[in-house]
């Protein structure tokens, strides 16, 4: 089945803009790879008929096959339209703020593994308010300390749901 999505996205590809076809192809290929993993692992556990009926790979094997076919369709249609496709994925002005969000988020999650949730949360909020919001120190500090403190009270004290804690919280005796 061909994809009827040739919408008129013929925006002018300005300098520095990423065309859709690149990410489209990469995502398509990654999904094809995942499909390959699903198929091979299903074959490992058995896709046939065992003593107790269908084996563990019976169902996922076909899921993998359909996934491979569908992602293959995406990849092939992308390649077929490669020269003609000028649809823009994102301009540089759009991608920069996305990475300005993405990179701190990744660092935040990694920091959470080592430091617990409270300190990285305070730093994340403070960083955004100072760096992007151009807030003065007092409101930045107020919000970045106040918000994690509120979550601490709501989750740990009120609902008794423990959140990840790190060395600093241990030092304070929690």
């Amino acid at each position: 089945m061909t994809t009827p999505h040739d919408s008129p996205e013929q925006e002018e590809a300005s300098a520095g803009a990423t065309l859709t076809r690149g990410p489209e192809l990469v995502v398509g290929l990654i999904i094809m790879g995942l499909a390959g993993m699903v198929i091979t692992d299903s074959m490992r556990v058995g896709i046939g008929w065992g003593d107790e009926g269908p084996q563990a790979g019976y169902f996922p094997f076909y899921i993998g096959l359909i996934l491979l076919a569908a992602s293959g369709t995406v990849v092939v249609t992308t390649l077929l339209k490669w020269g003609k496709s000028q649809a823009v994925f994102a301009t540089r002005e759009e991608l920069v703020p996305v990475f300005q969000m993405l990179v701190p988020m990744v660092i935040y999650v990694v920091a959470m593994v080592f430091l617990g949730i409270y300190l990285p949360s305070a730093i994340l909020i403070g960083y955004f308010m100072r760096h992007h919001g151009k807030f003065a120190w007092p409101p930045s500090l107020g919000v970045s300390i106040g918000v994690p403190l509120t979550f601490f009270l709501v989750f740990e004290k009120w609902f008794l749901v423990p959140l990840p804690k790190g060395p600093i919280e241990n030092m304070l005796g929690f």
Partner: protein
Amino acid sequence: MDEINNLFNGFAVALTLPNIAYMLIGITLGVLIGVLPGLGGANGIAILLPLTFSMNPTSAIIMLSCIYWGALFGGAITSILFNIPGEPWSVATTFDGYPMAQQGKAAQALTAAFTSSFIGAFFAVALITFLAPVLAKFALNFGPAEYFAVQLLTFCSFVGMSKEPPAKVIVSMMLGFALAAVGMDTVTGQLRMTYGFPVLLKGFDFLIAVIGLFGIGEILLTMEEGLAFKGKSAKLNPKVVWETWKTLPQYWLTFLRSTAIGCWMGITPGGATPASFMSYGIAQRMSKDPESFGKGQIEGVLAPETAAHAAGTSALLPMLTLGIPGSPTAAVLLGGLMIWGLQPGPMLFVEHKDFVWGLIASMYLGNIVGLLVVLTTVPYWAAFLRIPFSVIAPVIVVICAIGAYTVHSAMFDVVMMMVFGLVGYLFKKLKYPMAPMVLALVLGDMAEASFRQSMLMSQGSLSIFWSNGLVGGIFALAMLMLVWPLVGGIVGALRGKAAP
């Protein structure tokens, strides 16, 4: 009338003081979630779900479903005042709602939006009240083959009804199924696709996927648009509300049509977003004055809001009766039912009458409470949007991280949330729909179990899917939905030939 009787018992359950309090909390949280970018009905409920584990299931679902109604109401506020759809289903509301606000008719637009949301939901709840018990009784006769056929129908209609290219709908859906298969196979006990990583033993939780896809992904998209809030303020006084209400009855046909579209799209898993667009398009086509749409036509607010709320509400019908959710939010509520130890499906109507009818009664009450809350508190919600995004964005990231962590108290889930967030951003940009992936992740184990049981019964022959009229009929309907775009294309081509 058994239903009326049951419903009154339901009201007795829902109308206790704690439950009304939970209703109010739910509506308030829901409107807040609907107003804030990056937090929506589905991931908002997913984040709050762990907090309800210790609550009584009836109170918990009343609160969570009220969050859903609140989010549906809240989406309209930002669309009309700020031209920013807080939720995907309120995109169509911006087309005429924002022009109305610019013309100084924000109060009329808001009143119209809230009232039509209420009407759409009310009809959908009435439909659930009378149709759900019938459907549940009918579904009691279902065997594994029938269940699999219904699940197939759900997924095939996704392929047939989506605006996105079919290949991408299928990719998204199959990824969901593949992710659902990761971990220990419940029948044979074998490990599938874990590659020796112990963290993968439990598999992927769809709550994490929902928080990442809809929360983190949405934040990244919002960053891209570089948000600057330039909004209109609004005050609702009773006089304007009353004046607007007086004009609404003349649009009864729009209401009726939009409700029908919404209920249909909610029960088949089209969802609220396509329903609102479809309803807007049809209202415009049927209008005597189609030119006025997009320039502040009140019908352009009524139609999408009615349909979105009707769809959002009726999505709970297949969730309650068959255990098949009609939308990502319904899927999260379904996950909640399972966590509270209630098995969704027809037996729910037999074994947990109080729960089901308490929920249905709370839908009536929740929407009345919701309408009152939003009509009286609009200016305060608009104030939330004046908080700069540089404050809101990191706070929402923190909320998402907490939500992901509390599901299983596992750091790995927070990491997965980030991965799903990136996937959500890429999928949105490349026009892969996300709802099929979430639903497949939720239904994957159930679909696989019913498929394997069917195969066991038939000794591996697919012919079991047309072995009797019922299963054959559902199966044929599923195939029809799958090729629906082709059918539409052929009909369109024939018409094109007929009319020169």
